[in-house]
């Protein structure tokens, strides 16, 4: 399969990010230079301003704008922290260095800009995301990595010291960590024709052992529970830039179902960001109806599971596709849940040989 690059390259994205940060700095600088107290406006992230937009199939922020003014005694400290965070992010991005949220918290102290706690520094980074529209990963601020990818995709590094080097993601049988170096790389080529995202690392390893990537010509991704933002963003790039359809396999319970939903429709917490979700991705299982059809060993739903199902039933993201409502009702009817490993009752390879082809077939 040939390379199909349709979207701006990662380097262009970097330039956009740096440009956005510089614009913010210039904006503040010019206001100060004119002798006025600088103001920054940004969309409000309060709950009443978070709406679901069926067109983009994700949560978005509404019209409400909050203003942060350095004239206000209560604003001047967060304003300064924001200016610092922008400057720090700019340094990270231009110097191609990476950092973590914890790192940000400590780095501030070098500038005598001590944050009261981690939460305060996290909030400032979220403010910066909201103002610029870029996610913190774009500023090179990453969380702990815990997801991995495996399959026939060749990437070209852009990180310092590796420029020009390429890697085929089948080169290591444990998969390759979805970290800054990977997410900042360009796609060179791939023979895969689909992406399979898997909730749990154990099943991801089983799929590799069972050669699923070859049998189904797929890129395999381990989400490690709720997929980190950079993994969600990477899945979107695979879908957008390489036009690969995405299939998601999770546990058969409300929590697994929602892991799939966040990959598809994003989270309310990231309503201020775009390009983290993959609206065309598909939840392939384990469905409640699979539990019945495959007679899977189950556990009873407990109280929180049931409560979660009722919440999800009302969630706007679950209104798009009748599949979701049907599965929620089925869970509530059978009052049982099953893990992905439950297929092992039919032997270790059953899930790969029987279940997976059937589900992929069913969705095609």
């Amino acid at each position, binding site marked *: 399969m040939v390379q199909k690059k349709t979207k701006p390259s990662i380097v262009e994205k970097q330039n956009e990010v740096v440009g956005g940060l510089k614009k913010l700095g210039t904006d503040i*600088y010019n206001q100060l230079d004119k002798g006025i107290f600088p103001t920054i406006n940004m969309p409000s992230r309060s709950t009443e301003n978070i709406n679901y937009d069926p067109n983009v199939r994700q949560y978005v922020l509404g019209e409400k704008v909050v203003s942060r003014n350095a004239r206000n005694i209560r604003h001047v400290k967060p304003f300064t922290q924001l*200016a610092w965070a922008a400057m720090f992010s700019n340094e990270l991005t231009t110097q191609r260095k990476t950092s973590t949220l914890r790192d940000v918290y400590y780095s501030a102290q070098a500038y005598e800009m001590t944050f009261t706690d981690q939460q305060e520094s996290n909030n400032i980074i979220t403010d910066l995301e909201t103002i610029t529209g870029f996610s913190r990963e774009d500023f090179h601020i990453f969380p702990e990595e815990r997801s991995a990818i495996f399959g026939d995709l060749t990437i070209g590094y852009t990180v310092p010291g590796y420029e020009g080097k390429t890697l085929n993601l089948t080169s290591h049988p444990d998969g390759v960590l979805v970290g800054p170096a990977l997410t900042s790389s360009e796609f060179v080529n791939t023979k895969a024709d689909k992406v399979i995202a898997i909730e749990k690392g154990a099943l991801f390893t089983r799929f590799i052992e069972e050669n699923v990537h070859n049998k189904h010509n797929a890129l395999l991704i381990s989400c490690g529970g709720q997929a980190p933002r950079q993994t969600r963003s990477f899945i979107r790039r695979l879908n957008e830039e390489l036009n690969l359809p995405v299939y998601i396999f999770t546990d058969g319970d409300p929590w697994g179902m929602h892991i799939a939903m966040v990959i598809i429709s994003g989270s309310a917490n990231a309503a201020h960001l775009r390009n983290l979700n993959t609206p065309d991705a598909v939840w392939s299982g384990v469905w409640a109806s699979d539990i019945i059809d495959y007679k899977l060993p189950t556990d009873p739903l407990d109280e929180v599971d049931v409560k979660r199902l009722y919440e999800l039933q009302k969630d706007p993201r679950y209104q798009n596709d009748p599949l979701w409502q049907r599965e929620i009702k089925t869970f509530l009817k059978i009052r049982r849940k099953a893990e992905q490993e439950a297929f092992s009752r039919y032997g270790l390879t059953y899930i790969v040989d029987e279940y997976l082809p059937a589900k992929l077939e069913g969705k095609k």
Partner: protein
Amino acid sequence: MATATFEEISASDFFYRNRDIAGFSNPSRAIFVAIREIVENSLDAAESHRMPPDVYVRLSFESEATKDTQIYKLRVEDNGSGIQPRFIPSAFGQVLYGSKYKLKQTRGTFGLGGKMALLYGQITTHQAAFVTSSTGNSSKIYSFKLMIDIQRNRPIILDRKVLINKDGWRGTIVEFTLEGDYLRAMPKILEYFKQTAMVNPYANLTFVDPKGRLYKFTRATTDMPEPPRETLPHPYGVDVELLQRLIMITQCTNMLMFLRSHFHRVGEITAQKFLEFSGLSPSKNPKKLSHEEIVKLMQNMKRYKDFLPPDASCLSPLGEDLLRAGITKELNPEYLVVHQRKPSTYAGHPFIVEMGIAYGGGVPKTGSFVIYRFANRIPLLYDEASDVSYRVISSMNWRRYKVSPDMPIAIVVHICSTKIPYKTVGKEFLADRAEVRREVANELREVARQLGHFLTRQEHVDREKKRIGIFSKYLPRIAQFSAKLAGKQRIPDIEKLLKSVQKYGAEED
């Protein structure tokens, strides 16, 4: 004073047997009281001729006495008026003899403090006392070696020397030995000197303790308060004994004259009206009054409503300036307010309350108010909780004045009167008399109100400082960060913005 055998005892004997009531209750207390009594006499002696006092006190170790007590030699030198040689033996060797039986404000009340100290020294060490004095007018200095004949209340002169006064020295030196416990008394003694310095800012006090340590309290001013004038007794304050004495000494031959010449603020008209009120003929000879008539006269004096209140010319308050100087000198507070009440009276005795309230600076933070109590310029160091000022201070609603006990606050209360309403001979605390309590409470409100204003203002200033502090901390950084982010070399000038914040702050007040 009668026992089963109806034996008469002398005044010395009485105090010898009951030395507790004069404060000599234990070895540590005794050494403190001895120092205090002699120093007070010295201060009085200097003030009586308008001389800023210089008092030098030396306490030196002589020998061990018991397990807990030692023998000390106490020497006190002053630059006071001095005592004429013929009065020296009685002044120091006879209890209840003294110059303090007229009605004016003095430190001592009973004329026995100094003598009690000598008496105590004699009974604990069996050694003679030395008194050296010169009035400065003569060219001689007289030095006496004395003991007290306790049973007969008479001085015994063991030796008498006359020296040539070449330098025109004036003053008195008292030196005697006594048993005591200095180590235990030390904190109170040092506190006594500190507080005495506070309320006598025009005095130089020097104390050398038995370990050879020097404590020096230097005067902050040479201004002294107006000396008190002697005054006649006010009719409200007399008792039968005083009436009888006055009748005995009077030259007057009729009641009208008698009342006019021996009582404070009684004139022709007042005397006439009062005699009418009590049914006595104005022409009656006071010396002819029967005992019953004298008792009735005393009772009528207390009942009669129209006597003019006593005036306060016989009082010598410190005054706001000196009180301020004294408190500033010893506490160096951040904020101080002093105030003096108008004179008031209780039972025919005029009195004046003065108060200072000091905040911050050198005022210690103890978790409760530090209270300095003074009566006729004597520090009161014991039984604080029994004192009327303490009760007034603790029952006050301080929250109304934005004051809380954890603030560093010292309250200085000075009451001066011709007769301080002490509860005991030991002169430690003031009785809770309605008139005194009311004056203290009103005065406390006055100074507390001013402190409250200060604290409110302070709060504003603090808030404002904090506000400006926040802007001056953050605005320069916004400028620095944004310049770097925008890629500019020049950092924008934020002085104007900082100024506007200050201006705005000023308007807020």
